[in-house]
């Protein structure tokens, strides 16, 4: 029921047979799959080995180090050479959100009311050089990725936030040379690792699915340079890495299928070409030169038009939901949006149909009314600020009513957007047009993505001094639960002086407490209900104007096997077992 996309439902019916064949994991392959087939089934399921799978990307990740990344596509890709304690089973759509033990032999065992989590590492897992992986290596991986942020700064720091404090403050393995290291992670034997948390955390199995728990041998760690020679525990290992140009992976001879029920090690080689123009990637996908667009952000606008107008090409596309919401954050600390009535007026005033068109139409996202995207557990369909249209014109009666209550009159404000994301700038321009009709004169200021959070939108002091009332934003889940989605954008405790992602600066004690109690609750159903409640509370505060539930349009290479578009990684194909047709 959570999937509200009609086209996906059609695909589900038409590819039911494929689903059965795909789940069997062997034999049949079907290159004549329908549009969206990979969102509901495994396309071209095959166990055929050999060949080279070529990926391409228009940019290059800042790091391939599993402990130094925050990109969903690196999370996805890094599993080829780094095994975290748990990971997502390859599966279509929301089925891909199912966790499975990876380096751990089973899911975590909670104790102490969810404050202590214990994992046992599988026996016989080895690094590419044949040495055995120990629990100490996992502990070291968490230490370096979360407690040495002046050196490895790119990943999230959930472990730093939730592990028990050490007296005096642990300074990370590069500075702290004590034998024990971080005291809140214990390794009583080479196979066991125990995490001690400050507070109960019912979704800790999701947290350890981050590549930050993939083991790193301390003797081989080179800090920020580790990205150039990651020591593999996965089915592939680094053969050659040229920064910003190419990464080549080859089979890891010390990987064993006996210790790994998830990976198949199908192709002989995996080549990732970096910094290839997006238009070239799109063409190469169609010609078969490239099998997968690594970033998974979908084809460019020109290719989109070409794909959608040619039925044959359209059949090879997947229009997937990406657990993302495109929204405008209303700054609750800047007048007049510090007044909830003013914010409610904006909720009614923004013409979401016009914004949707500016963002690329329904193919790039359905109109949204909730903070939680439709493909996150806990989503409940509702609309606190329903919009009425007569023809193409938005009825502004409610907007004007609330704006009158707000009493701000004609005001000037600033809206921020990223200038290297044209669709975002277009959407902001559309928002400006909508707001003008109720007396809000907004002017756009746009900045590059690379500095958006560090210097501008993510810096509350900048927003205050520049009268920034509205901020364009797109947010995806850190892990596919309500907490993984909401915590960073609604929790008042997550507000930071730079790199802030709670752009509304909403600090509502009720929401903060709900988030805290939800994550401590071991009842999954109760947690999901709590997430829906938090969503509604946030919408009552009108801190966020949901615009669209982001969708991505990807071209599915007919030459690639085992393609599933998974919700766990923003709608990307699951990279664990992609092979190549012979």
């Amino acid at each position: 029921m959570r999937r509200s996309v009609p086209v996906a439902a059609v695909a589900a019916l038409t590819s039911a047979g494929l689903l059965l064949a795909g789940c069997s994991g062997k034999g049949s392959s079907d290159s004549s799959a329908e549009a969206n087939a990979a969102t509901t089934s495994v396309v071209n399921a095959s166990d055929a080995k050999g060949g080279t799978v070529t990926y391409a990307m228009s940019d290059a990740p800042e790091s391939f180090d599993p402990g130094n990344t925050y990109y969903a596509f690196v999370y996805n890709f890094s599993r080829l050479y780094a095994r975290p304690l748990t990971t997502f089973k390859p599966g279509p759509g929301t089925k891909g959100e199912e966790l499975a033990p990876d380096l751990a032999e089973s899911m975590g065992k909670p104790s102490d009311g969810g404050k202590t989590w214990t994992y046992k590492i599988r026996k016989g897992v080895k690094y590419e050089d044949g040495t055995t992986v120990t629990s100490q290596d996992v502990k070291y991986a968490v230490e370096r990725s979360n407690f040495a942020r002046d050196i490895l700064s790119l990943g999230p720091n959930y472990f730093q936030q939730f592990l028990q404090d050490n007296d005096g403050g642990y300074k990370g393995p590069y500075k702290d040379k004590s034998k024990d290291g971080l005291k809140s992670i214990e390794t009583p034997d080479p196979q066991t690792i125990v995490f001690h948390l400050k507070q109960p955390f019912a979704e800790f199995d999701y947290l350890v699915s981050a590549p930050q728990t993939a083991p790193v041998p301390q003797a081989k760690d080179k800090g920020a340079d580790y990205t150039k020679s990651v020591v593999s525990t996965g089915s592939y290992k680094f053969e050659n890495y040229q920064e910003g140009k190419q990464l080549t992976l080859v089979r890891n001879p010390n990987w064993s299928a006996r210790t790994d029920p998830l990976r198949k090690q199908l192709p002989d080689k995996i080549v990732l070409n970096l910094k290839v123009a997006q238009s070239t990637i799109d063409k190469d996908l169609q010609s078969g030169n490239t099998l997968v667009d690594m970033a998974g952000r979908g084809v460019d606008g020109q290719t989109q038009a070409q794909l959608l107008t040619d039925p044959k090409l359209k059949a090879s596309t997947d229009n997937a939901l990406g657990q993302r919401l495109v929204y405008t954050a209303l700054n609750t600390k800047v007048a007049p949006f510090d007044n909830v009535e003013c914010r409610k007026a904006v909720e009614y005033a923004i013409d979401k149909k016009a914004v949707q068109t500016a963002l690329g139409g329904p193919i790039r996202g359905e109109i949204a009314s909730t903070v939680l995207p439709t493909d996150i557990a806990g989503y409940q369909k509702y609309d606190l600020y329903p919009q009425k249209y007569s023809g193409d014109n938005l009825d502004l009666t409610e907007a004007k009513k609330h704006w009158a209550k707000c009493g701000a009159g004609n005001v000037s404000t600033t809206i921020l957007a990223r200038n290297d994301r044209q669709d975002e700038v277009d959407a902001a321009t559309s928002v400006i047009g909508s707001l003008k009709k109720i007396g809000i004169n907004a002017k756009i200021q746009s900045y590059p993505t690379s500095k958006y959070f560090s210097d501008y939108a993510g810096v509350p002091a900048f927003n205050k001094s520049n009268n920034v009332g509205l901020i364009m934003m797109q947010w995806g889940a850190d892990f596919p639960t309500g907490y993984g989605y909401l915590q960073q954008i609604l929790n008042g405790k997550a507000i930071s002086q730079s790199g802030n992602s709670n752009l509304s600066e909403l600090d509502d004690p009720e929401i903060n407490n709900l988030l805290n109690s939800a994550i401590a609750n071991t009842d999954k159903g109760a947690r999901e209900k709590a997430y829906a409640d938090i969503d509604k509370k946030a919408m009552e505060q009108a801190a966020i104007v949901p615009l669209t539930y982001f969708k991505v349009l990807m071209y599915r290479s007919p030459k690639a096997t085992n393609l599933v578009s998974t919700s766990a990684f923003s709608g990307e194909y699951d990279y664990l077992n992609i092979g190549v047709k012979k």
Partner: protein
Amino acid sequence: MFSYIIRRLISAVILLLIVSAVTFGIFFLLPKLAGQSTDQLAQQYIGKAPTTADIAAVKKNLGLDKPVYEQYWEFLKGIFVGVDYKFGPDAAKCHVPCFGYSFKTHIEVWPEIQSRLPVTVSLAAGAAVLWLVSGVATGVLSALRPGSFFDRLAMGVALAGVSLPMFFTGALALALFTYQWPIFERSDYVPLLQDPFLWARTLVLPWVTLAFLYSALYARLTRAGMLETLSEDYIRTARAKGLRERKVVLRHGLRAALTPIITVLGMDLGLLLGGALITEQVFSLKGVGAFAVDSINANDLPNILGVTLLAAFFIVICNLVVDVLYAAVDPRVRLT
């Protein structure tokens, strides 16, 4: 001549020092003047929600807590003695000549530029040969028959070449000759010494596309220069003396018209060697230009500084070569 070249080289070094100081100032001083604190500068190298201790550690590690002149001095010193940074259990070395170290991608700028330079040089040199030959030849032929059908056609094509942006002609060339009719299969750059045939095949489309733009300029420039030169008295004298037309045109006419072309060629080559930004982007070539674009997008200041210095170096050197060539082409010029 020798002392002239030495003097020019010394002035080139001084110029490069000035360029480096200005570039350094733009990237490291201007943000400060605009009100950005060193904390904010450091924050861009840390991820979400950095602590005060994280910021202090980054500032210390990258030297952001030092005055800008001291940072600049450290940069200059690094060129001769190298620099050590602390990015893990061991020191990350930026070897001599250290023209910078990317704090984002953790690569040394100079080796990275070195690895990309063959791509850019191959692209620029090959295209230059093409545009020089085709542009000058077209310009000469047009000038010999001004107003003729050929002249009008050639200048019309030249106008199109100048008018059409590189990102359009490049994308069109790719669409037609790589995807529609796969004559030139797309592949990554292959070094010349590894496989000369593949090297050329990979670069043919970028060469032709780039040359189409530049040859148009050169054709128009040559035509204008030739028309002016051919109306000079000494040309009439040469013809009156009974010299063959080919000799009149090539030795007397073209030689004089070449001076401005060499000037422009020097500038163009210098600029291209500093990075053919759009061409490399369109054809996904990993050259210096693509490196510059990526670094700008990523706000990676050490990389940008390195590429800027390289571009300045090539412009200075190409201009020096042009000045020396003047003397060879034009007997009236003497280098003193």
